[in-house]
Each structure stands twice: as structure tokens, then as C-alpha cells.
């Protein structure tokens, strides 16, 4: 129970970088220290319109902290953050436990503090195949269902950028696939930009336009197919894994005809 003093006021962007109207979010030289300990440092990131960036990295690498500092939830200790003015961000946090002491239905949660009409909520829910659960209490949902409700809440504001923190954790393989399929469709049809933290590397490789490998600092970043060949990637995830990923990548390319480099 962290009752107090855990939040900053919503921050204002402190620097306008060189005008780039496609730039949605960028960070330069970003660092976060918490209780005297450096969590992330020297992070640079540019997210432009219709990007799909996935942040990968081992446990404790500062992935969630990176998302939180970009959203202003965690104060930055160093560097600059730029957010496009009036950028609409939908956030899907990592953990979401509704106390069973609070009786709130899916419908009630989605209507909370948003002036959305019933049919708009229903439209989003049916997109996520959750329409039949709209009168179910939040605390009675399974992990995967709750995840989808969170995504519905993030999407309901029609965001320019969707920020997801390990959306597939605790999901069985079938739900993972359907989740990633949904994200992929969303990215391709609605042109929503995505910034995601994920552990599911093979999913990452097939969905993402950019991968950023974080371990306190940015070890390597770039297109998925190039990153597996990066020595920094190999040193963090191990040789076996890197080569396994390249094999997967190869098979994936082959499947799609694979000459779009």
C-alpha cells in the first residue's frame, strides 16, 4: 500500500526538438534513478507516426520504467522527453487487479470518466470479442479477459499511440496469439502507433518494425531481422537463442516471400 507521495504532477514537455510533424514521442539521453539507484540511463528513442516499437530485455532491465517515464508516471532524472502536443495515448499497464470489494462491471469500468455512449463501448467490446462479458464484474474476469478489457479502455479514446506493458503475460498460448493478431490488425488498419514491452520474442520479430533491446541502457536497436545478428543481442540472450531467432526469422521471411529489405 503506497498511499502517498508516489506521483509527480503530469509533466509538461520541456523541449521542442527540430520540427518533425511525424514525430510522436522521443527521448534523448534519458535517465531514471530511483532511490539512488540507476534504473535506466542514456536512452534515446524516436517514435514516429505508424511505428511499431517493441522493447525487449531481461528481467530488471528497466523496460516498464522506460514506459512509465515516457508517460510521465515516473519522474526522469536526466535527459529530455518530447511528446507531440495533444498526443492521445492509450496505456495498458502490466498489472491490473480489481479488488473484489469493489463491485464494478466491465461496462461500468469502460464508462468511467469518459463521455462515451453505450454503443461506442459495445462496438469496442465486440471488436475484442468481449461483448458477452459487459455485465460481468471486473474481479470475476480471467487474466486474458481483463487484459482485453484494459485494451478496450485504451482504445476507446481512439489513441494515436498505444503503449502496452507486457500485454501477453499470464495468457495461455491461444490467447497470446489472438492478442497479437488483434494488435497486428489494429496496427495495419487503423494506423495506430504502438510501443510495447514484451518477452515473446518470436511474436515480436514477426509484428514489429523496430526492436529495442534494453538492459539499463539501449544495447542494440533496429529492425528485427538485423538485431538478432548484433553481438550485443547475442551477449544478452545467448548464442542459442539468437541463432534460434534467426532461424525463425528466416522461416518467417521465406513464408512471406521475404525480399522486402
Amino acid at each position, binding site marked *: 500500500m503506497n*498511499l*502517498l507521495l508516489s506521483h509527480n504532477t503530469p509533466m509538461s514537455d520541456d523541449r521542442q526538438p527540430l520540427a518533425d510533424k511525424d514525430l510522436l514521442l522521443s527521448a534523448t539521453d534519458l535517465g531514471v534513478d530511483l532511490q539512488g539507484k540507476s534504473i535506466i540511463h542514456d536512452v534515446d528513442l524516436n517514435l514516429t507516426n505508424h511505428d511499431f516499437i517493441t522493447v525487449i530485455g531481461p528481467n530488471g532491465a528497466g523496460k516498464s520504467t522506460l514506459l512509465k517515464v515516457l508517460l510521465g508516471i515516473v519522474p526522469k532524472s536526466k535527459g529530455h522527453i518530447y511528446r507531440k502536443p495533444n498526443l492521445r495515448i492509450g496505456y495498458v499497464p502490466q498489472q491490473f487487479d480489481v479488488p473484489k470489494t469493489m463491485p464494478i462491471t466491465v461496462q461500468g469500468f469502460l464508462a468511467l470518466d469518459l463521455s462515451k455512449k453505450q454503443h461506442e463501448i459495445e462496438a469496442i467490446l465486440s471488436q475484442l470479442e468481449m461483448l458477452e462479458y459487459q455485465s460481468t464484474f471486473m474481479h470475476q474476469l480471467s487474466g486474458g479477459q481483463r487484459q482485453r478489457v484494459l485494451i478496450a479502455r485504451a482504445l476507446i479514446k481512439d489513441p494515436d499511440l498505444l503503449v502496452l506493458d507486457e500485454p501477453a503475460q499470464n495468457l495461455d498460448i491461444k490467447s497470446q496469439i489472438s492478442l497479437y493478431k488483434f494488435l497486428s490488425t489494429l496496427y495495419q488498419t487503423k494506423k495506430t502507433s504502438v510501443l510495447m514491452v514484451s518477452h515473446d520474442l518470436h511474436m515480436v520479430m514477426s509484428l514489429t518494425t523496430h526492436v529495442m533491446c534494453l538492459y539499463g541502457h539501449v544495447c542494440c536497436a533496429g529492425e528485427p531481422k538485423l538485431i538478432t545478428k548484433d553481438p550485443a543481442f547475442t551477449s544478452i540472450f545467448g548464442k542459442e537463442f539468437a541463432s534460434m531467432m534467426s532461424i525463425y526469422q528466416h522461416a518467417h521471411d521465406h513464408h512471406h516471400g521475404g525480399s522486402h529489405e
Partner: protein
Amino acid sequence: MRMIITMVAVMSNFIIQAMLAGIFIALAAGPMGCFLVWRRMAYFGDSMSHSALVGIALGISMGVSYSLGIMLVCILFAVALGSLELKGNLATDTLLGILAHSSLSLGLIWISLMSHPINLEAILFGDILTITYHECMVIVLGVLIILGCIFKMWPKLILLTLHEDLAFAEGVHVKKIKWIFMALLSMMVAFSVQVIGILLLMSLMIIPAATARQWARTPLSMSLLAMLIGALSVVLGIWGSMQFDVPSAPCIVLCATLLFMSSLLRSSA
């Protein structure tokens, strides 16, 4: 004959005032209690109300109203807890245990050192039948302010209760709203001392909320139901205390408990 009528009029006046003050406190306790239940802050509320004793001593020493002293000390209590939490290596309930009982002890000693006598029992367990017209009006006004603020912030408070980071990302001023809530809670403590006393206050906040949970299907209906159940407990409790000539605050609490037990017969999702 005329004297008897006057006596009855005075009698019923102070009962009406007691009822009114009690009912209004219960109305504010409803939604506030729900938030304490949802946020698992029952022990926090209890500890904060223990610190009210220091507030009373402070208020008397400074020559201001004791309500002001209580509000000041309760806010200080929240600040102290917040900064101790940031230190980070002790759990919140441990810190609360330290703060609650050290402030209770400090208050007891401070009050014992005062030159003019203070009725400790009235502070600890309330003294609802001695409430004056003026005090009653202050309580009514205070409760209206508390309820106004709570319902104005309602959706943001619910969102923040569910997930602070999500609320923040959606543009809710999390820190500001949390402090407003703390201020309202300290007001609540200050106004309830005379009605129910600092040791029993939390039960008037927690028990009706817990009772309402058995029936409610939305956060709002749970709050409204808690208000109703609290008010009913106050009416029954004051009636019972006069009927059987027993102290009123414990009587109110036991009435709330009886309602809670009957709610257990029905169990909703």
C-alpha cells in the same frame, strides 16, 4: 405544566440535534468508508483517528478550536506516513502501528498535563447527546463539503483506486486528488469526535461499507447504500441507548454490526 413542556421541548431538541449530527456523520462516512475498504485503508483510517487526540491537545494549547487542531495533526500524520513509506524498508502496517500508538500516547500525556480538566471518555467514545445547535450546524456544513468534494471527484477517484498509473496516464492529477482525499478524511475525523469518538469512528466508516458490499452492483450504489445503512445504525443506536440507558456510540456500532450480520445472510457476487 409549562415547565414540563419546556423540559420536553429542550429534551427533544437535543435529541433531534444528536440525531441530525449523527445521521450527517453517517452520510459522509458511507462513501469515505467505501474508499477505505476498496483501498485497504481501514487500518490507516483507524491510526489516523488515533492521532486526533494529539490534535485536540494541540487545539486547546493553541487556543483554537479543537477541530482545527485535529485536521492539522491528521494531515501531519499523513505526511509523516508518506515520508516514512518512501524510506522503503518497513511495511505500511508496521509504520501505522508505530504512528498510531505513539500519537495516542503523546496525546494522553499532553492532555494529562493540562491545567483544566478534559473529559477523556467523551473524546475516546463520543458524547453525542451534548452536541449544541452550533456544533450540529458545523457538522452539517462540514459533511456537505465532504460529500460535495467526493461526488465531484467521483469517477477520477474510482479510476485512481483501481489503478494509479492508469489514472495518471489518462490525465488524472493523482497526487492532488490523493491529498484532497486525505484532507477530507482528516475533516471527517475532526467532525466525528463528538459523535462517535476517535476509537470507534472507523467502525462507522467500515461496517456500513462492508454491509453495502453484499447488495451493491456498482461503486456508486455501494456508497449510497452505505450512507443509508450508516444513518439507520445511528437512528437505531441513539434510540437504543436511550431506551436501555447505555452509552450511545457503542450502541450505534453494535446496530451497524447487527445490520452487517443480517447482510451476510445474502451474499452477492
